[in-house]
């Protein structure tokens, strides 16, 4: 058991993957000498060499496209996209190739490519550095999408992504890179495609993932002071979504708030609300309330605090749910 940040946990997870399987390799912009702009790959090039930790030319379609080719040759490439907003030049290769190869080949071919994307806001940065585009990938079948919210998950989920035969996108909550926690490097975390109940409660359920998990927990703690018992679920996997866990919870609590940083309109909160409204129709005492970003490009740093869902926004949503 060691204490480390999420960034360090991913670094250690990548190290373990590289050490364990000679077919793994890291690819991306500035991941070598520099160790990535967030130092998540720090020291790995020095340790494993330039054939295993590859500073690529500056071209995201090139990164994903060549990773697919490497995977077809039996390798397990782990690509880094430098920031959420820069995944789009690679969108075509992800959506039309990576996701579809298995179906195209009637199940004959696998493309176990892992794509790491630091995502989300709250870091006071410039345009394209604070986005949450996960819904744009979740709609496409053939991909799996996970997002850790703590060091233990971070350490294990990256390794589980690497051993998965399907392509996996790992969205890393960049503003939590420095969040510390215990990591048990011997006992694997739970199946990465399942949700986890982080706090038990009986009056309402809050579902969150990635950077908003600490916010949801804090909101639940605040609500407890008002005498409300809130259950908090960390989704962990965005595609597939572990609806069984959410349904079971809502069936007990009767109320659901879903929170993500991504814009509400067309976001995954809609998918969750729609499905839970159907599956738990008779248990719901209030409509599912969504908390998310507004329908605008992620705003400039000076106003992002007003934009980002925070404890108060979740509490306000709970208030609305309790008003029914």
């Amino acid at each position: 058991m060691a204490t480390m940040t999420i960034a360090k946990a991913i670094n250690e997870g990548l190290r373990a993957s590289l050490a364990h399987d000679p077919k793994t390799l890291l690819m991306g912009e500035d991941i070598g000498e520099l160790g990535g702009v967030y130092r998540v790959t720090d020291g790995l090039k020095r340790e494993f060499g330039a054939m295993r930790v590859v500073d690529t030319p500056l071209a995201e379609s090139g990164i994903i496209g060549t990773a697919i080719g490497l995977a077809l040759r039996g390798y397990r490439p782990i690509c880094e996209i430098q920031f959420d907003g820069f995944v789009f030049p690679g969108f075509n290769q992800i959506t039309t190739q990576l996701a579809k190869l298995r179906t195209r080949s009637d199940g004959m071919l696998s493309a176990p490519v892992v794509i790491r994307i630091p995502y989300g806001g709250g870091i006071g940065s410039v345009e394209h550095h604070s986005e949450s585009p996960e819904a744009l990938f979740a709609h496409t079948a053939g991909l799996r999408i996970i997002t850790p919210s703590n060091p233990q998950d971070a350490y294990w989920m990256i390794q589980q992504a690497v051993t998965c035969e399907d392509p996996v996108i790992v969205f890393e909550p960049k503003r939590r890179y420095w969040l510390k926690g215990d990591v048990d490097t011997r006992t694997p975390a739970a199946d990465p495609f399942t949700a986890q109940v982080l706090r038990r409660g009986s009056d309402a359920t809050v579902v969150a993932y990635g950077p908003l998990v600490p916010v949801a927990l804090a909101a639940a703690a605040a609500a407890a002071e008002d005498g409300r018992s809130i259950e908090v679920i960390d989704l962990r996997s965005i595609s597939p979504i572990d609806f069984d866990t959410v349904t079971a919870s809502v069936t007990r609590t009767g109320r659901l708030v879903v929170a993500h940083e991504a814009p509400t309109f067309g976001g995954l909160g809609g998918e969750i609300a729609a499905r839970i409204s159907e599956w738990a129709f008779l248990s719901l005492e209030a409509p599912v309330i969504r908390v998310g970003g507004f329908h605008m490009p992620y705003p400039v740093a000076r106003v992002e605090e007003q934009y980002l869902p925070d404890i108060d926004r979740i509490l306000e949503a709970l208030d609305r749910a309790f008003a029914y």
Partner: protein
Amino acid sequence: MNASRLPAAEFEAEEVLRAAHAADVGRDQEPGGEMLQVLSSDGSMAGGMAAEVAGSTVDFAPYLSATDAPHLRSLYRDMFLIRRFDQESTALQRQGQLALWVPLTGQEAAQIGSGRALQPQDYAFPTYREHGVALTRGVRFDEILRLFRGVTNGGWDPRERNFHLYTLVLAAQSLHAVGYAMGMQRDQLADPSLPQGVSVAYFGDGASSEGDIHESMVFAASFDAPVVFFCQNNQWAISVPSSVQTKVPLAKRAEGYGFPGVRVDGNDVVAVEAVMRWALEHARTGKGPVLIEAYTYRMSAHTTADDPTKYRLSRDEQEWQTRDPLARLEAYLRTAGLADESFFEELGAEARSMATDLREAVLSMTAPDLESRFAAVYAEPHPLVQEELRFFQQYEAGFADEGKHA
């Protein structure tokens, strides 16, 4: 701006087309001395072939098979069979047995010449028209037609044939080819006793404009990847002439990335094979990528859904008839006495029986059911897929049980 881009409303149909292509004819159809060729359209064979490539003179003589009669006959056989296959597939489409067909007539030399140069350990990434290359990699004709009958998006096991599935998003496969080559490079480092493989990216003149082609060349050059870019410039991207994609030979693109580029007569199977052998050796021996532009012509429609009379002159089509890749090799084989009449007769018979078998195979292809498609999305269990499959099964069962609505 050139004249062809000015408003043309006052012209009549044929003139409009002529005006629109005036510039192209001079530019693209007379590529000058840059195009490598040994077997000219009249069926005469030059003694050797050499060219300035990336600053030094390359002698292609060691790579030429111009005097190897059995080999020339077998090249002709492949070209003949694949053209016959093309005709049969077109017929099958017309009869409603295929959803669509993508003809390759005119490009047999480019495809057979390049495909036959490959070694077993090499791996080719086609677009959707490389039926000739498929043949050289051992893909069966009926396997190719499965896609066009709409029963699969694949059709064969790429790992068995070292021939990837057709990729319909233009240029996407070019990056896969480079990544695959990077893998071959790593395999060799891990085990130097392995035969070094080369990866080949096939693409067209139209696709050359896509960003992915550029990125694949940047990556290939950066990592000295053992990859050959094989561009069939068949003059057309559906209705758009190659002059819209480029005003200079596409082979010249290579220089900008620092690796050799060669334009070869894509209708000369001997020249194509030689240039491809040279390029493969270049890549195989660690000297990095090569770009080959095979200058050829799509003699038929883009697909069976296309109508080329809308955009190109029959004059041009006729002109290219005289450069037919099969006719010229046949002429050479005959005049040089390398094949007698019986060879051509037997080949005709072989092709006819192939066509009959093919038709049978197509008619007996079984369509998958949707149920089976749920299993091909993910390698590992997936709750959403399982749930939707359950829904679908119950839904279908509902009809079976009680003969519901409509």
